[in-house]
């Protein structure tokens, strides 16, 4: 009767769970993290002598739909060349049959962890604006993320902002229906890809109406209802608005206004947040770029499109923006008034 000692067990467990990088240029260092679809490892690229992150699917290539989805994820990210989107270096199949892709190793922390150390609202808004830029770029290339949340935004060691985890992203080529879009996607990596049968198989793999994707608290209402056909850039705008809510209040989005959670939140900031999080997509910002532009105005103490100021608020904002000047002028006037009534005269 076969008996496995603890040592043999340990070895077999490593064989079973760790990816077999033989035949690739990567050398496994350690696991960085995992989810249901894949595990991310720290690996060394022996050709370029640098560390990379390698995401490996938690299944063999026989589980075709998962493999196709993972390759698709890599292809989506690879076509988005932007400083705010993690670059993909490589994609392939390991010796153990699992699909993988290698990407830039991000040294930093998630946005939700980052803000525990960063109290400054301006800094949070700058990071958020950078995230809007990255998402806006993706939208301009017909890609919607569909799972935006603080945990999917990384802040690098140099302060750079990267939007990660495009695992459930969708490509929407302009002028095409979703059906056309899915058939237009080509996956050249896996063998036997081009037959009609396999294209039909791929189309069947695509998320269908009624399927719910994303993370509940940051999901747009149409996403929560599973209205896949209705999803467009404005669904991502909703999620960005929910992230803004989190940045303004330090809490996950809830059914109360930001100013009710924290009275220090300005009316303008609240208005921007609530506009992005409008229940009806028609009432939201039309794009992540528009949202980012309003956040830029918040940062520059300029009026935002989401909020109409009264004259008093305009004056107060101007005074706030030009505090130094106001103080100097006040000092000058005080000095003048002082000399008016000074006993020395």
């Amino acid at each position, binding site marked *: 009767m076969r008996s496995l000692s603890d040592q043999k067990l340990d070895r077999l467990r490593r064989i079973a769970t760790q990816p077999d990088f033989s035949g690739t240029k990567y050398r496994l260092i350690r696991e960085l993290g995992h989810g249901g679809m894949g595990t991310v490892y720290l690996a060394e690229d022996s050709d370029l002598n640098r560390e990379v992150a390698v995401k490996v699917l938690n299944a063999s290539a026989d589980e075709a739909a998962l493999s196709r989805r993972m390759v698709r994820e890599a292809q989506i990210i690879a076509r988005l060349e932007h400083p705010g989107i993690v670059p993909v270096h490589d994609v392939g199949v390991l010796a153990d049959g699992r699909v993988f892709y290698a990407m830039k190793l991000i040294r930093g922390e998630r946005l939700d962890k980052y803000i525990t150390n960063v109290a400054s609202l301006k800094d949070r808004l700058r990071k958020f604006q950078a995230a809007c830029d990255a998402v806006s770029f993706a939208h301009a290339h017909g890609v919607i993320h569909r799972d935006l949340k603080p945990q999917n935004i990384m802040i690098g060691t140099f302060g750079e902002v990267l939007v990660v985890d495009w695992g459930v992203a969708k490509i929407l080529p302009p002028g095409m229906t979703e059906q056309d879009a899915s058939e237009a996607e080509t996956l050249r990596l896996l063998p036997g890809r081009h037959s009609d049968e396999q294209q039909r198989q791929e189309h069947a793999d695509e998320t269908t109406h009624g399927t719910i994707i994303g993370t509940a608290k940051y999901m747009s209402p149409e996403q929560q209802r599973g209205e896949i056909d209705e999803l467009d850039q404005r669904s991502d705008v909703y999620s960005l608005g929910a992230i803004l809510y989190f940045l303004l209040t330090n809490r996950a989005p809830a059914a109360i206004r930001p100013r009710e959670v924290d009275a220090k939140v300005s009316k303008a900031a609240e208005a921007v947040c609530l506009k992005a999080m409008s229940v009806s997509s028609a009432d939201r910002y039309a794009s992540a770029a528009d949202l980012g532009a309003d956040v830029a105005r918040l940062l520059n103490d300029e009026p935002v499109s989401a909020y109409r100021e009264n004259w008093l608020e305009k004056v107060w904002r101007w005074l706030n923006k030009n505090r130094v000047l106001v103080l100097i002028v006040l000092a*000058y006037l005080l*000095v*003048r008034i002082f000399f008016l009534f000074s006993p020395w005269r």
Partner: protein
Amino acid sequence: MSKPLIGILVGAVLGAFDGLTAWFTPAVRDQLAGIVVSSTFKGIIAGIAIGFFAKKFHSLPLGLLFGLAIGALLAYLTARFAVGGYYFEIMLPGSLVGLIVGFATQKYGRTPVAAHP
């Protein structure tokens, strides 16, 4: 609008305003016209100097410091040659005017773009 021009405009306006406040000093009220003209002129000179400084050095603290210094210097010269010895009354507001011009030239106005080699 260039920074020197901003400096001239702000300096002139503030200089004129500063000069007009002499009306509240009965002893010099009859010299008001001359005071306003010289104060405006002083403001323009200060504005030119501070404006060119801002064109060269893009630093708010430095700009404020320079403005303060120029304002104080020109105010001192004015008080030196003025009758009555109102050094404090002239120099303190004059320094603050220089400070305001320094701020305005650093914050506003077109920053020249460096030429590419």
